[in-house]
Every structure is written in C-alpha cells, then in structure tokens.
C-alpha cells in the first residue's frame, strides 16, 4: 500500500493544528509571537490570518432543508470555539516535534462558556451555542405519508419506546492526512488527501481558497478505510492547500489518533421516541419516530442530511400504511456528526426492527411470523412505501427462509426453551432488513448521483479503466477489472483500474452509500459496451463484411448469419458467468465463412488507423456517465444467537447467520469481506462502542484505550449465504453491499440479547449492551 504519509517530497514542512481544549469558550486573545520565533518554526497562522482568505467549510444541504441554520464554520476559529478539538492555529515547522513544542508558546486566553452537551438538554433550552440563533435548534423537518394520527388512533395497540443511538467514532485505521505542493510558476496546487471524494473535494477546496478548479489536482493514494468519515471536505484540507501557496514549499499534516477522535466526524447520535401501532392479528398500522438528531457544533458536508435518510427507510421491509418522522436537528458542543457506515439507515432499521420485536412481545407472537405477515410479496414490486420510495425489487421471504433453514430456527427455539429450564439465558434475535443503496439518482442527491468511467483499449490491447468512484479498501480494482475482462474476453491481468487522481480521471462523484459497483461499475460496463460497438465496426471493415453480421464473443469478432448477429448485437450479455459456461441463449456458432479477428487485432488497427472504416474516429476509448433511474434496495436476514452469562452479564455468541441479497455478485470474496466488516462494526455499536463527553463537553473516550473498538476475540464465526434478486435499475443487476452488515446486524444482536433477558421482563435496552447494564438487570430482578 501507498498512503498519503508514504508520499515523501523533498523539503516538506510539517503542519500541526492547535485545538481548543474547551467545549465552548470565547477566545479573548491569541499571542503567537513567541511561537513564531521558536526553533524550527516556519510560520504560525491563526483565524485572523485566514478569515478573509479561506472560505467556510461547506455543507451540501444548504437550500435542501427548509429553515436550515448553517453556522459560519471557518477553517480556524477566530473568537469562538464550539467543541473540544476545534482548530485555533496552524503551526508550520521543520518537523512534528518543533511544531508541538511551539504549541507551548502560543498563549490563548479563553473565557469559558457553559456548554450544551446533553442532546435532550440542548434541545430543551440549554445554553445557546450561537447567540444570534437564540436556541440550539438547527432545523425541524417532518416527512412521511399517510394519516399517522388516525392510524395510531385506530390501532388495537400502540407501543411507545424511547430509543437511543449513541454517538460512534468511525475509526478508520488510517487517520486523515493531507500533503500539499504548489508550483508558483505554473500556479498549480496538488493535494494528496485521504478522502473518499477526490473530485467533489477538489471543487470545494478550490472554491474555499479561491483558485481555479483546474489548477488544483487532488490525488488520493491508497486510503486505509473511510466508513463515511472521509466523505467530507475538512478545514485541514483547505488549510494545507492555502499554506502551501503561502510558503511555496510542500506541507504535510498527518492526523494523530487523538485528533481523529476529537475532530473527525462522528456518526449516529439520535435520541427519539418510537410509536408503533398494530392490530391484534399482528398487522403493523403505523409508525412514528420523533427524533432529536445530534448535529454537533456545526455542519460538515452532509450533517443535517443524515437523519433525513433515517426518515426514508422507516418502512423497513414491511407494508406500513402510515409513517411519520419528526426530526429536530440540535446543535451541541461536540464535533459534527455526519455519514458513518450506513449513514442514517442503520438508525431506521434499528428502530423498525426493534418495533417489530416490541410488537411481537406485546402480542405474544413469534417474531419471525410477525415479520413474514407484514412483508410485501415478490409480485408487489416495485413496492411503494409510505416514505415515498419505490423499492426496485425484493423477495424478503426467500432470504428469511434461507436464514431460518441455516439456523434451524425451530430447533434453536427448542434449545432456548430447554436452556431456560436449566437457567441458561439464550436469546435469538432476527433482523430482516432492507437498505437504500447505489446512491443515487441525481434528483435525490446534493451533488450529482451519477458516476463516470473511461475505458481505453491500448494498441497492445492492454485495457486502462478510469473510474470516478474512489475505492478505499473495497477492492473495486479487482471487481471492475472482472467486469471488463468478462465483457472483452481479455485477461484480468491485462486490465489496470485507475482512480483517485483528478488530473487523470474524468470528473466523478466518489465512493459512499454502497454506490461504487452499482453506479460506478455500471458506468464501466456501459463504456465497454460503447467500445465493443466501435470495435465491431472496425472488425467488420477488416473482414470486409457488414457490421450487422459480426458477432463478438470471448474476445473474438466473427461473421455470423445476419439474423443471428442482429439478435446477438441487441442482447445484454450476462457478464458474470464463470469461464467456459455458456450464457443463457448462448451465441450461435459462427456459420459465416469462418472469418475472425480478435479484439487484439482490432486494438492495433484502431490505433494504426489504416484499416478502419472511413469517417470513423481512430483510437479505442470511450467514456460513459451513468445516471441511475432509481436507488437499489438490497435486503436480507440476520440471525444472532447469544447466551448471557448470569454471573457477569457478559454476552457470548453461539451462532451468527447472515443471508444478504445484494443482487448479482461480481466477486463473492469481496462481498463476504464487506459483510464481515459491516457485521463487526454493527457488533461494535450493539455491544461496546460509545463516544462519551463529560458534562463540560470534554471528550472522555479520546483514545483507543477508552473507545472500545471490537477486537478479534470478540467477533463470532459468521455463517454467510446469499439469495440473488437482480436489480432492474442497472444492466448488471447489482445493488451494493458496503453497508449491509452495519444495517442488518445491529438490531439482530440487540434483539437477541433482549430475547435472552425476556424472562426478566426486559423489552428494550439501549446500546451499547455492556455487561454492567445487563448485570444490573439480572441483579435487580433477583
């Protein structure tokens, strides 16, 4: 791997950011004069130096949410700090140690202000962070369809439950990092950044520091994990670019883990009340989620948009005629929240899946049968939800039945019953989830929802793929090459996938929202289709036949009977078949005169351009911008079987089963990898992880000693399988799988623990389900 910090340029200076140690304070003075002359220090910049030079950190939701308040969040604070970790000064020095020593010489006088820390208190009139707003309400939004009041009033039962989604830290293994270099002669700035969105970041940073977009080159080397935390435009990215221009020397900032915990976005952070109505026969009649969403102290790129995604997915995979979400976005003196693996959808799935278990417990029915009863049937797709979405495809019972079969559900319930008689606390948790992926149609996106690809066949028939997606560990260098190899019939090793360099790759959107394969992969597929059509014309010309009579299969163009060829030309090939297996409606054997040219022949001919049809452009390169017509909606069933230790409250996994349907699978190993990682992060939220600030807004979980990321020994063996319901939204039928695990697994695990504790009258517990919480329940009841 080759990460930002591995890029070494001569004479590179180090930048370190002095950050606020208070959650909320006025800065009455900053004195950097002594620090500026300290050994090794090249420059010290404060908010005043950049206030007129560098624009505010952008929020893409401006204008999209009525009444949204977006505080003017500057790259360095001038007189008002609003969270622990808020950057105050940038020290440029010859090395990191000199910069850190200089921090001691910067005199910052703070006047501490009361902090709004607790979400509910901040919403209810705690100290207002921004005086001119008067309160901490960032926005209020109501969404959903159907008459929720009437639906709940007409229900046989209405169950209400307060539910907390604790704040989480994304913890990418590689923290953020930026290297900036400026060539004054060319007026060209290059930024190496660990980001998920090189092109969008380039546009925004160019605007922030006021240089032409095409004079800024963003390079994204390998990225050691993002999980949404690098789907953003950060103050440090603009600052580094600006400093490089000031000094004319390369400057580098590599985030420390402490900074990562303090000043990289957090995820989740919702507290709300669920109301779910049902009839006595177990039909869900309505669902309402009144939620306070913790924005943190300011808006990053998508901060206020995340809870709106929760609203979209509140129907889960059920027919619910009336749904309403009432969001109150709340400012608190903490770092901003934003997209973290799942981004608003895990919150929705958790609410819905907890709701189903609460209803099942209330009615005394089996949780699986309750789910089955409320599923839309396969022939009801595309299925319209009361949240305004059209689910493209689905077969929820198939995934459920497969998972139940793997788990041997009946036998498990029997084992649970017997165990209880012996005093064992076994719990079985089921989650049948659906997620919204392949984000998305541009109409529904803040900055375009398409993705781009350029595919270039070189004269020697090596294939270069340039994708606007920005894989950061997902392995699309492999899966995109597989798509092209299958289409062109060339060897996988002859294909190079390039991404993450705005000087090489055409404009793209990036990798997030489980979109890279379904949208970016489709763009690659479509570009190759264009190339095949052009190559067919060249091949026909070379063979001296009509293009309509030329078929392409396994890398070879051959003349076939005109009728068969036209059928072939319009067929959408099945790209993912194992080598040697003929696709359905297999190509007819060549029945022409046996003439044949290979794609290699065509590649050379296209570049020599002596043997191509008159008027046809030489070369063999095609670009496609793919605009999806809808999102995709992967789904599945996760089953967790746990046992709670009566003495310690500790949780042990007995089984973990996951059946996911992400449509057509290109690379099963990569898909399994995504599911594994997602389940681990879900398990982290369910059992261990929690960002904690104290009453003054000090970050208590500031290190990996204090923030409990799951370790290998805490992770169960996962039994994975799939069903395959192709998406009709793209020609390959793929859906996306990057976030499935975090969305499906969290409620399965919590449902299992609650089920284990059902004999103690437990209906709900808030995450993380630490042994101490469980121990208290066990010991209160005894």
């Amino acid at each position, binding site marked *: 791997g080759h990460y930002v910090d591995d890029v070494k340029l001569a004479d590179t200076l180090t930048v370190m950011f002095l950050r606020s*140690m*208070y959650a909320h304070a006025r800065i009455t003075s900053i004195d950097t004069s002594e620090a500026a002359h300290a050994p090794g220090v090249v420059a010290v910049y404060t908010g005043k130096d950049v206030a007129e030079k560098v624009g505010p950190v952008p929020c893409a939701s401006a204008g999209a949410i009525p009444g949204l308040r977006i505080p003017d969040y500057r790259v360095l604070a001038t007189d008002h700090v609003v969270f*622990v970790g808020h950057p105050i000064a940038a020290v440029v020095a010859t090395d990191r140690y000199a910069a850190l020593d200089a921090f*001691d010489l910067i005199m910052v006088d*703070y006047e501490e202000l009361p902090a709004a820390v607790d979400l509910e208190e901040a919403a209810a009139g705690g100290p207002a962070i921004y005086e001119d707003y008067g309160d901490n309400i960032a926005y209020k939004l109501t969404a959903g369809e159907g008459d929720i009041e009437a639906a709940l009033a007409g229900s046989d039962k209405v169950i209400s439950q307060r539910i907390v989604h604790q704040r989480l830290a994304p913890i990418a293994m590689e923290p953020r990092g930026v290297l900036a270099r400026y060539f004054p002669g060319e007026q060209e700035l290059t930024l190496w950044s660990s980001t998920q969105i090189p092109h969008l970041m380039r546009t925004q940073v160019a605007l922030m520091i006021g240089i032409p977009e095409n004079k800024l080159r963003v390079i994204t080397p390998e990225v050691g994990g993002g999980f949404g935390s690098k789907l953003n435009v950060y103050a440090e990215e603009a600052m580094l670019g600006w400093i490089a221009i000031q000094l004319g020397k390369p400057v580098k900032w590599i985030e420390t883990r402490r900074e990562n915990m303090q000043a990289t976005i957090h995820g989740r952070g919702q507290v709300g009340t669920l109301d779910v109505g049902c009839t006595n026969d177990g039909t869900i009649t309505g669902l309402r989620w009144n939620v306070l969403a913790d924005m943190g102290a300011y808006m990053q790129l998508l901060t206020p948009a995340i809870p709106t995604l929760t609203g979209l997915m509140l129907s889960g995979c059920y027919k619910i005629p009336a749904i309403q979400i009432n969001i109150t976005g709340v400012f608190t003196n903490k770092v901003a929240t934003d997209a973290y693996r799942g981004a608003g959808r895990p919150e929705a799935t958790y609410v819905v899946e907890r709701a189903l278990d609460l209803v099942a417990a209330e009615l005394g029915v089996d949780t699986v049968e309750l789910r089955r009863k409320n599923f839309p049937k396969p022939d009801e797709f595309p299925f319209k939800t009361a949240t305004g979405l059209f689910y493209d495809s689905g077969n929820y019972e198939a995934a459920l039945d497969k998972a139940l079969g793997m788990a041997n559900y009946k036998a498990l319930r029997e084992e649970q019953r017997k165990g209880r008689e012996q005093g064992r606390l076994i719990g079985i948790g089921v989650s049948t989830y659906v997620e919204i992926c392949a984000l998305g149609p541009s109409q529904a996106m803040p900055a375009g929802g398409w993705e781009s690809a350029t595919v270039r066949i070189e004269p020697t028939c090596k294939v270069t793929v340039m994708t606007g997606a920005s894989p950061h560990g997902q392995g699309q260098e492999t899966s995109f090459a597989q798509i092209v190899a299958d289409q062109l019939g060339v060897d996988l090793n002859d294909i190079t996938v390039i991404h993450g360099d705005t000087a090489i790759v055409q404009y793209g959107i990036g990798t997030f929202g489980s979109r890279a394969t379904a949208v970016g992969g489709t763009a690659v597929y479509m570009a190759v289709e264009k190339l095949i059509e052009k190559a067919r014309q060249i091949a026909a010309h070379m063979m001296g036949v009509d293009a309509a009579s030329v078929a392409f299969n396994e890398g070879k163009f051959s003349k076939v009977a005109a009728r068969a060829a036209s059928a072939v030309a319009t067929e959408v090939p099945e790209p993912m078949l194992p080598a040697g297996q003929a696709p359905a409606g297999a190509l007819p054997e060549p029945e022409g005169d046996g003439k044949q040219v290979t794609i290699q022949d065509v590649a050379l001919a296209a570049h020599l351009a002596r043997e191509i049809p008159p008027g046809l452009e030489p070369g063999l390169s095609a670009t496609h911008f793919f605009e999806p017509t809808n999102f995709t909606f992967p789904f599945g069933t996760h089953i967790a079987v746990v046992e709670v230790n009566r003495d310690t409250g500790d949780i042990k996994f007995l089984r973990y089963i996951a059946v996911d349907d992400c449509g057509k699978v290109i690379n099963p190993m990569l898909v399994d990898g995504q599911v594994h990682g997602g389940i681990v992060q879900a398990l982290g939220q369910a059992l261990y992880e929690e960002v904690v600030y104290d009453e003054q807004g*000090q*970050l208590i*979980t500031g*290190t990996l000693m204090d923030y409990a990321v799951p370790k290998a020994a805490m992770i169960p063996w996962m039994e994975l399988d799939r069903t395959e319901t192709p998406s009709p939204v793209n020609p390959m039928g793929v859906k996306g799988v990057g976030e499935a695990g975090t969305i499906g697994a969290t409620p399965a695990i919590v449902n299992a623990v609650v089920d284990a504790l059902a004999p103690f009258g437990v209906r709900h517990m808030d995450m993380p389900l630490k042994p101490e919480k469980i121990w208290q329940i066990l010991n209160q009841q005894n």
Partner: protein
Amino acid sequence: MKIEGTQEMHARRERVFQALVDPAVLQRCIPGCERLEQIGEHHYSTTLRAGVGSIKGVFTGNVRLEEVQPPTHFRMVVDGKGQPGFLKGAGTLDLEESDGVTLIKYSGDVQVGGTIAGVGQRMIQGAARMMLAQFFTAIEAEAQTEAHEEPPRHGSFRTALRWFSGWLRRLFRR
C-alpha cells in the same frame, strides 16, 4: 473528579498548618512546582511542571486560600492551564491533633479538560493520589522541623525514602 482522603502526620498541628500555608514551603513540597509567588493575601501565582502518564507539560495558574482558620481549617481554590489541558478545583483541609499526631482530612472537586481529560482520564485518580502522597510526605518532613531550623531538603529520592519509611512505620504499628 472527587478527591477525598485523610493523612496522618507525625508533627504538631500548628507546624503542619504553618507549612501548608507558607508559600516557600509549598513551593518546595508541591511536586513539580517551579514558581510560587505571592500576588495578594493568600493569593499566589504558580508555575507547575506536571503530567499524567505520557501527557506532560507546564501549567501556569493561581492558588487562593480562603476560610483560613489557623490551625484547623482552610479552603484552597486552584486553577491552571497549560498545553496538556487545564484544571480547576476547590477543596477544604481540616486538621485535627491527638497525641502529637495531626490528622488531615481533605475533600475536593477537580475538573480537568483538554488532552488530560481525553487521554489521561483513566490515570488521573492514580496520578493525583501519587502527587498528594509526595506532597504530604514532604510537608510532614517540613513540619517536623521547627521554624528557626534549616528546612529539610526534598527531591524525588528523599521523598520516596520518607514515604517508604512512613509506610514501614505504619506497617509495623498494625
């Protein structure tokens, strides 16, 4: 963070009290104290080198003594900040004497912020207890001398030795 405890000293209460409110003595006895200047009645400005685990640095701040009732009681208000963070707190000390032994009861509340809070939270209690033990050991040595005598010398080795001998004494008394 609450800090509470008791400390026995083999010295007269008057001497202990004098030591506790004497800036010259305090500067010698507070671990890492580099400067303690009087800026008003019972009001001092100080520079302290201190740390928790790997989080170390220089703190500057103020110490104020209130409710000074010799030789039984006073209240101490502290605030300081430095690169590793800030601390502020207040606490009371009550002194009782019996059989030539002075018992100090202390109780306070300290708030910390910045890196110390984010990184050192786990270790603060332990570090505070250790600093207090060092402080009280040194104060005891001071209080065992008379006002006109040469003050004892401190330093980490002497303090450790004194703490160890005090520990042995307590051990054998049981």
